[in-house]
């Protein structure tokens, strides 16, 4: 259990990382819609993941509309895969399940 990455283990952050593992990048609204988190909560978790180097945030515009894009860094993807592997080991799941 001590091998678990606590940063990824938190349920909301785990949801964000799992969602981002399936895409190249996604915007704030997509993440909010899929996770069901409030704006403030999502911002806070994204900032934590960004500080850890797991997520890269880019603020841009789509036409005149502001667009906040988030993507998983290679380090973040590695952390997510390691987390899954560790959990599978703990739960005794024999076959690893690919996320992407």
């Amino acid at each position: 259990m001590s091998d678990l990455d606590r940063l990824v283990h938190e349920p909301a952050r785990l949801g964000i990382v799992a969602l981002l593992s399936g895409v190249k990048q996604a915007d704030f609204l997509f993440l909010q819609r899929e996770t069901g988190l409030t704006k403030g909560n999502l911002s806070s978790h994204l900032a934590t993941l960004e500080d850890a180097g797991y997520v890269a945030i880019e603020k841009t515009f789509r036409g005149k509309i502001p667009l906040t894009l988030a993507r998983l860094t290679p380090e973040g993807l590695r952390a997510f895969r390691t987390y899954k592997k560790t959990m599978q080991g703990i739960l005794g799941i024999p076959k690893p399940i690919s996320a992407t």
Partner: protein
Amino acid sequence: MDSLTDIARKPARAWQLDGIVDLSLGLYFGAQGALFLLWWQGLPHPPRASYFALFPVAQASLSLIFLYVWRRAVPRWKERIAVPRIGYLEMRAAPVGRRMAAGLSVVAVSVLTPIALVTFGAANVKQAVALVCALALTLSLIHTAVYWSMPRYFVVAGVASIVGMWAYRSSAGFKALAWLLLWVGVSLAAVGVMSLIRFLQMPLVPQEHRS
């Protein structure tokens, strides 16, 4: 862990929710099938070599036109229709090696299948070829429906298997392949239209505001 995998598949499912990809591919397959049937209808007696050359040229032209329209139109449709409803997302492209392998296998199958059919095209093979294609298509559609949790593909799989069985019982021969393409295309386009109608009824997500 299953639910984690399920969450990771959510973006791909959201990306397909609007049915635009199904509609486009359905129209393409339907057009390919219709093209083959039209070509077959106009087959001169006795057959001329120039007429045989016409089909691959028409087929390649149709594919190029489709690819051109796809690359320009689909991102614009997504931008106008999908982004305001589900938010913006960009799918991860498959690795170059895998894309090249897929492209090469498509080319190899497209070239080798006609050669094999002409070389070993006995009556029973002609009869079975549409059934085999329909079976392969049905299995891959069922896999897609289950893996991505998209039950609409069960409908297309059902259509493919019905056409495959009809092809085996009929004497349509290679022509059954065209009917298979046509009906799979029509059913795919139909489920695409239904998905699109449902998708358009979804509420718009509120846009980000300037801070």
